[in-house]
């Protein structure tokens, strides 16, 4: 921790130089918070299985200056998700590359660099940036705010429907171990609609970057947002994300995070249902083997009456993989007629994998329908046997069952092209054929 405090002190000028003043204006406060809290202590109730300080203790390199455009990412990274018709962006080591070949956007929509947005629209930027992530004194969010220099912003004005999916491809890595801090800000005004897909990769199988990512989402009244994340990174990569979402009345949101490969993944979600009849679906899935670790922490706050939330997280663990899931649902005293459902299902495939699950309900209203369920187990022996008795080899039968296990998370995706692509990737992943991201890269 001290190394980062010192680093900030000595490099502050360099960090500020290439950034918009509006972005820099948040660093002082973040510095105070970080000095006070440090990284989240581990073990603590919210960080039982993720020791951030230990993950970031090495001497990481920082990219303090935007990279030159040495490769054309459009050529280097081909996305094979068909029929996506996407607005494409690339975020390389935390910096959004300029893209010129996207089709023109509807009037008023901004889709581009955080740094540019902060310069061009400082009033909007100041209105939204860090308002959710800075709400609580979280050491990880403060750390990100302290160092972040760029990222991505999507702004969709009132009643504008962005038909095309935004596809953001994140590429991190390099020859030495680097620490990358990036930021995503999504603002949908009332009645706006958009779909965002983030495909996260490392530049090659050997790179071992640590990425901190803070995502803030504002969904206005009646706004609809689909936010999909696909993680396919190298086995030594570390990714720590904080997702802060605030939904106004009657807004709809789907969040779906899929980890196919990575070293250590920690995803935090905090969703505030702040307007009546807001609805959120938070789905996630991870396939983890070798020594992979996946830790998800979710907190859904039902602040007002008549909101709905449903959560579904599924893990498939093998080898020495470790999975953790902590899901909190908090229903405030006057949030009557709340419906909140949470499910965590896990498959363990080997002797040495380990699963921690901690679903929690905190309910302070009485007219509610809430439930949570958790199971950890193996493939159904009877089903396996039944399939084998019909001539299906054991391996194949197991694969089919595992594939079926993931299907309800995949079905939650509303982009057909992505769904199809994922089915293929998941199958390859189970067959051990997915050495690196062959599809997207």
């Amino acid at each position, binding site marked *: 921790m001290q190394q980062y405090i010192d680093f900030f002190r000595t490099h502050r000028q360099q960090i500020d130089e290439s950034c918009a003043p509006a972005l820099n204006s948040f660093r002082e406060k973040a510095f105070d918070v970080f000095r006070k809290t440090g990284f989240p202590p581990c073990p603590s109730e919210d960080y039982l299985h993720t020791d951030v300080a230990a993950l970031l203790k090495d001497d990481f390199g920082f990219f303090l200056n935007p990279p030159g455009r040495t490769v054309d990412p459009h050529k280097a990274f081909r996305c094979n998700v068909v029929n996506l018709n996407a607005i494409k962006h690339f975020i390389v080591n935390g910096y959004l590359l300029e893209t010129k070949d996207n089709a023109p956007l509807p009037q008023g929509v901004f889709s581009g660099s955080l740094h540019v947005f902060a310069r061009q629209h400082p009033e909007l930027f100041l209105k939204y940036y860090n308002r959710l992530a800075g709400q609580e004194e979280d050491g990880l969010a403060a750390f990100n705010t302290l160092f972040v220099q760029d990222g991505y912003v999507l702004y969709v004005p009132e009643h504008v429907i962005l038909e095309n999916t935004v596809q953001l491809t994140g590429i991190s890595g390099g020859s030495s171990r680097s620490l990358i801090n990036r930021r995503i800000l999504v603002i949908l005004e009332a009645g706006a609609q958009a779909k965002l897909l983030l495909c996260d990769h490392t530049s090659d199988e050997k790179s071992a970057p640590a990425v901190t990512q803070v995502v803030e989402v504002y969904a206005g009244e009646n706004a609809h947002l689909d936010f999909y994340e696909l993680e396919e990174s190298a086995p030594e990569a570390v990714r720590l994300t904080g997702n802060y979402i605030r939904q106004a009345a009657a807004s709809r949101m789907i969040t779906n995070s899929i980890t196919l490969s990575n070293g250590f993944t920690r995803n935090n979600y905090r969703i505030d249902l702040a307007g009546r009849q807001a609805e959120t679906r938070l789905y996630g899935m991870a396939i983890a083997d070798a020594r992979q670790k996946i830790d998800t922490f979710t907190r859904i706050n039902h602040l007002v009456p008549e909101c709905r939330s449903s959560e579904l997280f599924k893990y498939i663990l093998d080898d020495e993989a470790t999975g953790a899931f902590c899901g909190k649902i908090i229903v405030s005293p006057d949030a009557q007629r709340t419906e909140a459902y949470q499910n965590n299902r896990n498959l363990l495939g080997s002797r040495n994998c380990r699963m921690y699950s901690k679903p929690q309900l905190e309910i302070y209203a009485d007219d509610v329908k809430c439930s949570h369920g958790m199971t*950890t187990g193996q493939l159904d022996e009877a089903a396996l046997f039944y399939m084998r008795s019909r001539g299906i080899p054991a391996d194949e039968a197991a694969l089919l069952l595992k594939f079926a296990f993931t299907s309800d998370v995949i079905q939650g995706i509303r982009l057909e092209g992505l769904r199809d692509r994922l089915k293929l990737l998941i199958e390859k992943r189970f067959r051990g054929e997915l050495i690196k991201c062959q599809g997207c890269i």
Partner: protein
Amino acid sequence: MQIETEKQIMSDETNNLLNELTNKDYAYGFVTDIKTDFIPKGLNEEIVRLISAKKDEPEWLLDFRLKAYRYWLTLRMPEWAHLDIPSINYQDIIYYASPKTKETSRHPDEVDPELLKTFDKLGIPLHEQKMLSGMAIDAVMDSVSVKTTYKENLAEKGIIFCSFSEAVHDHPDLVKKYLGSVVSYRDNFFAALNSAVFSDGSFVFIPKGVRCPMDLSTYFRINARNTGQFERTLIVAEEDAYVSYLEGCTAPMRDENQLHAAIVEIVVLDRAEVKYSTVQNWYPGDKNGKGGIYNFVTKRGICKGESSKISWTQVETGSAVTWKYPSCILAGDNSIGEFYSVAVTNHFQQADTGTKMIHIGKNTRSRIVSKGISAGKSQNSYRGLVRINKGAENARNHSQCDSLLLSNTCGAHTFPYMDVQNETAIVEHEATTSKISEDQLFYCNQRGIPTEEAVGLIVNGYAKEVLNKLPMEFAVEAQKLLSVSLEGSVG
């Protein structure tokens, strides 16, 4: 079939009885006017030595107490529970109080009539002629055991059922062997405190191959003002033994809070079974949250032998604050742990209760059924841990945690922790939270049943799966308590 029905009606009979009781306040809130022998307020090494001396204890036990006390000094009260507890001044508590009788407590046959009267009033007759048939009772008031019934009859079968203090003198080897073997004094803050100052409690030993012919029961009564109760229960069931043990408790109504910090240890050897049932009805405080018992209890059993079984059943209706997690360590292969709980909170009560199931042996099984009922302005939490250790092949757990809400000012919370380290395990947890159904209430109303009574019916129905696990006499008592505790919670 007819007999079934009649039996059911008999218990329904008492169920109706309680509706008359619903209009009453806490029924056990009286104070027995008896001279009490107190030791000075506060806690220090001298007090620990004094308690030990009062009980004429051997050196090794004093050492145990002192070690625990010194360790306790290094600890802070845990804060992780979903409880809001005002700070407790541990120097403001009297750690030992015994009803002064003409005889010393070493001669339990001659009990002070005033004490007999007290237990009579609580429905626990201790006179030879009036003793409950089919149940042996150890009655504990404040820091000492008043009397144990049927002791001699049980001794014929080799069963030891006596107060903890007697066991220390009469069976020191057994006590020495098992004391602290399940709950170490280093386990937690309250366990350390209890280990330093524990006063009395029950000791049960069922030898090899013996099925205890009657239910054993301990009744705990706090009487004296400003005192804490720190009892300790130790149950040992040898190979193929069986015992059903019951525990009940009450306290007078007082404006100030009183502390109760107990330890229960159970050791179960090969193929043996212990059923432990609790109806906890400490004074819960008044409607405004004034007074009541702070109940901090560490209860844990170990299924040491293969195919052994421990079953916890608890009905928690009392106490201002409850902090309690009866647990099972399933060390023996094929061993079974069960936890059935009904926890009711009303007015300003707070409960944070649940269980821990630690699966160590192969083919171990555990089952958790928890029914929380919250009313008034109370907070009711289930907290439980299921851990499947690496060697626990084919372990199975199923947990069902339901919460029923009766008011819009109370809270119901569920905090299960699941830690699975063996891929052959199957762990399942389901939880639901819902409001008492308007449709059900209206249906009862249409048949002429007033709302208050309908709530009692529905709540008892909701808790039935757990109540069914209690021995008959206790089930009746528990049903009454459920309805009484919820008095005034609807409307």
